[in-house]
């Protein structure tokens, strides 16, 4: 992992240098047959301390970079570790097969589940094939078709979110990208089977929530979940795209923020230095979190589950109700503002 590598973020450079030193010594060990394991162990300790040091000071913008890290494991990388017997199913039965949205049936330990998720591409060719993880209406409709199969056969749904945004090109608009996202949220809100969503990387706005109206929403430590990309928000709101770092902070898009704001149920810790440093371990953490939540959800009768899902999303948002502070009048003419917050 040489430090000139474009897949190394600026703040990762000290880590990459230590990695490189360790790798060199390992190579020498092999070539020369000299035992230098103590030296390696010391360097590894240094490196891990460096990671901890660096990661304790990450800014929200650094989290954005991690969520979009070119080496970050993508949806199908997780699928390979978490599920067995994955049978990918294609198509929306209406128009096409969207390669930015994948899904199918699989087993998870003893369970049969339906899986759907956004898929980004690793190299340029695959990125284009996957439309950079930006699904069109066909993708959302494929996802809904598969979720309805899950409901028909009473199997839980697992969704993996990793998208910069839904596609907003002319043809996505022409086939109703708004309708497809709205319909998914509506139908997921009453789907008669447990749903768990995991935000793996980028939780990009409507593109993300279109498959994330779930009983449990889990979020990777270094994932982001945002109503708009910070760059876009800076450009629109402050008409100054260079302010994206400030905007990343203002929008509160990190996993800690989402947990605090009540938008996700749990943050899944990533391996030291981020999921890309140990994709297998990251996937195992996701797997055990899913299994733990599934066990809870399976005990709840379906109608109760669906009602709880409604209440969960119903209660999101922060506002104040000044009519509760004094006797209600039919016609409030000039409401008095009161400043204490109340959560609905």
């Amino acid at each position, binding site marked *: 992992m040489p430090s000139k590598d474009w897949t190394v973020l600026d703040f990762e450079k000290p880590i990459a240098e230590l990695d490189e030193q360790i790798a060199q010594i390992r190579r020498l060990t092999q070539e020369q047959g000299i035992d230098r394991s103590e030296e390696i162990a010391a360097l590894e300790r240094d490196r891990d301390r460096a990671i901890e040091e660096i990661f304790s000071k990450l800014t929200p913008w650094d989290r954005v970079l991690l969520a979009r890290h070119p080496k970050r494991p993508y949806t199908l990388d997780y699928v390979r570790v978490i599920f067995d017997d994955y049978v990918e199913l294609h198509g929306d039965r209406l128009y096409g097969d969207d390669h930015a949205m994948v899904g199918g049936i699989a087993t998870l330990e003893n369970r049969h589940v339906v899986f759907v998720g956004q898929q980004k591409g690793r190299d340029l060719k695959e990125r284009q094939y996957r439309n950079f993880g930006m699904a069109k209406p066909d993708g959302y409709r494929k996802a809904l078709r598969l979720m309805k199969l899950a409901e028909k056969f009473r199997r839980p749904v697992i969704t993996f979110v990793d998208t910069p945004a839904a596609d907003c*090109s002319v043809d996505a608009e022409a086939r109703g*990208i708004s309708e497809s996202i*709205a*319909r998914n949220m509506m139908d997921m809100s009453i789907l008669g089977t447990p749903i768990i969503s995991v935000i793996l990387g980028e939780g990009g706005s409507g593109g993300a929530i279109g498959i994330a109206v779930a009983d449990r929403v889990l979020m990777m430590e270094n994932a982001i979940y945002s109503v708009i990309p910070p760059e876009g928000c800076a450009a629109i709101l402050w008409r100054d795209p260079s302010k994206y770092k400030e905007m990343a902070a203002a*929008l509160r898009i990190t996993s800690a923020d989402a947990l605090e704001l009540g*938008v996700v149920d749990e943050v899944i810790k990533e391996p030291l230095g981020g999921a890309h440093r140990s994709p297998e371990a990251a996937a195992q953490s996701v797997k055990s979190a899913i299994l733990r939540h599934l066990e809870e959800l399976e005990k709840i009768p379906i109608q109760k589950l669906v009602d709880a899902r409604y209440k969960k999303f*119903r209660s*999101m*948002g922060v506002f104040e109700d000044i009519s509760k502070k004094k006797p209600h009048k039919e016609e*409030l003419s000039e409401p008095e503002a009161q400043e204490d917050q109340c959560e609905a």
Partner: protein
Amino acid sequence: MSAAAWFKSRVGADRQAVRQSVDALPDGLWTKCPKCNEILFSKELEKNLRVCSKCGYHYRLTAWERIQITVDEGTFKEIEAGLVTVNPLNFPDYEAKIERDKLKTGLNDGMVVGLAEIGGHPVGLGVTDWFMGGSMGSVYGEKVARLFELATSRKLPVVMFTMSGGARMQEGILSLMQMAKTAAAVARHSKAHLPYIVVLTDPTTAGVHASFASLGDFIFAEPGALIGFAGARVAAQAGLIERPANFQTAEFQLEHGMIDRILPRREIKPTIIKVLDFCMGKEVTSDAE
């Protein structure tokens, strides 16, 4: 509040005055159409429901103006007027903007909900004003959800006029969640076999278009209204260059199967009444089952 009360109120009068200072020519009696440049007699324009008599341009309406031309006279009762916006993320400048738009509109936030009658049918009604770009934050979403919940419990149709630039960025992820919240509220209302009629007005985009605005049993739109997923500036960011001339208009959406009809403003109320008659009229096909 009632529509009459609003129009009589200080803010209502101010708002009318502000509008005239924008649209009207110096003498105040005449207004220049921003689309065809025709000089229109202001009183005639009001009588014509603020539609240019020459080119058909539909001026934007305030929430209260919309209510006034839509409901049976004197039947609107606002609900949930006490919900007010706070600044949950401590987002820079948010309070100042809210205060500015409160003064401008006389509203606590962009969404006004209430109970009314249209053509004698009791309905739940939602209308939007141009408050923070018509954007949906927590108060907006909460009002929509409460409207649908009240309508569900009282077995009422919902009629919704949308006008929005999308989710409100200043409330971050909480605004995104209003999309799920409103869609879920529509789901429960719909499962109760109750009708939901949407009228998309200029502009209806992004988070609002991609949630409750696209979920009507009946979806109508005003002519020429901007309607679409990507807000204009987001689309510009995404570098969308080659687009059809009518991209993201009501006409584009009709052509692509997303809306039922385009209705000139004068036809909206009569059509809503026909639809309410269809859905709620007494003659049923079968009392059995």
